[in-house]
């Protein structure tokens, strides 16, 4: 959990993924499309991957990846991200966290 929080605060937009997860790919692409440059951490390539996954689950993220943090705060999984994006909140969050400027 500490590692998760630590990594999440290092950049305005942070996404935890797995290399095999295609939905993670989708969400990451969405962020790129919005102009944000998220930090992407692949759990299966991280030595502490398993604990991190467990930590993400305990935050309520289901499935555990993709897990999105904006401004150090946990936003949610793919479903939450899409919902926020549709009603315009995602962009606002990104702007507030200075991940994007317009």
């Amino acid at each position, binding site marked *: 959990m500490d590692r998760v929080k630590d990594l999440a605060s290092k950049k305005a937009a942070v996404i935890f993924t797995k290399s*095999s*997860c*295609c*939905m993670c*790919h*989708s*969400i990451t*692409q*969405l962020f790129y*499309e*919005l102009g944000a440059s998220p930090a992407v951490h692949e759990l299966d390539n991280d030595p502490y991957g398993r604990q991190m996954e467990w930590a993400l689950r305990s935050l309520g993220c289901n*499935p555990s990846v993709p897990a999105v943090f904006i401004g150090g705060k946990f936003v949610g999984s*793919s*479903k939450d991200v*899409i*919902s926020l*994006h*549709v*009603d*315009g909140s995602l962009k606002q969050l990104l702007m507030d966290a200075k991940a994007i400027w317009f």
Partner: protein
Amino acid sequence: MGSRARTVNVSSTGDSNNVVNGMPSYAPPPPMPSSSSSMGIDATNVLPSRISEFGNLEQSLGFRVEDAINLSRNPLFNQLQLKSNSQALGADVQFGALSKMQSIANSDINISAAIAGSQALSLQKDSQPNLASTSAGHRENWGESNMADASPRTDTSTDDTEDKNQMPERGESSERSKDKADQKTLRRLAQNREAARKSRLRKKAYVQQLESSRLKLTQLEQELQRARQQGIFISSSGDQTHSMSGNGAMAFDVEYARWLEEHNRQTNELRAAINSHAGDIELRTIVDNFMTQFDDIFRLKGIAAKADVFHILSGMWKTPAERCFMWIGGFRSSELLKLLVNQLEPLTEQQLMGIYNLQQSSQQAEDALSQGMDALQQSLAETLANGAPNPSGSSGNVANYMGQMAMAMGKLGTLEGFLRQADNLRQQTLQQMLRILTTRQSARALLAISDYFSRLRALSSLWLARPRE
């Protein structure tokens, strides 16, 4: 034959409430213990029946009546009467009573089962004090229009006059008609026999048909049982619940059909409300119900996807035209918004911005999901294509293959997730749209969407029905 009351129960119990077929010659076998057909008439008979159509009865009776008449004239007939312990069954008893149902109903005509023989067209008699002997005592509604009931005097029977009917009900002996043409009598008898025989054959055929149907039914039931065990959903007839009681493609198709019906009904309601310039409150209610309907179908799709994601993704539950322009198991939200913008005028600046942003967001989300799907397909292809022949031998190959398959299976599992997110996107887009628009605009937007899809479905039908060279 209009009144073809079918007797299903062909057992000999002769259930008194059975309805026999209007066909005069069809007479399922009654429990007729004593009546024999000494005259070659089958003692099948008289099941109590309800004659639904008097006219038919008369016609059918007509024939019978004639026979009855002739029968009664026949000295043999008397013998028969004696055999069957009916009471005073002379032809006299049955005079013309037949031709009028009321008279029969009222009469104490004794109907001899034996006589009734093949032609028992039963009349319904509620009170049958003098039921014919055919051990009919237990039958309540017995009415038989026996041949024997016919007036002994006429050959045409159905037009017997009333007084004629009433007159000879009791006790006149048949002797007096004996001197009438015996020829006629013999002919009548022959016809009787013929009719009886035909009746028997018909009955036999019917019974055989029933038997084979019964066998078929048993077989079908067994198949159904087997199919159920295999997890295929078979919807029971008359199932009115909305919950998915099973899983699988067929179950969803059934649910979808039901949903579509309700959806169409709501669309009509919406249309009526808009055209009649209904108030905002009413419109709001209708719009909310409409959205609940959409929530419903997304929920149903979710459940079905767990059972059979490929069925949903393939769009086999949609019409061909819809299927062609589908995107991940449903419609493309951004397309829908593009269609609507023109129809929704007038829109305020803010609304226009809102709709435009919504369109852009949904487009971006669609692109992201599409890219995810592409990545999935690529990954799957790589997994399956990774079939470099393993030099270490066949066992290695098999292990390789199984490993590949296992990995591929895992990837396929994520399809459901994509479908779920696609539906989520559709749902969110619709909801956001309603937040931007006023109630009235929302109503018109939903109606436009509904109409668009129903036209697309109609197009599919037309296309399928088009004449081909």
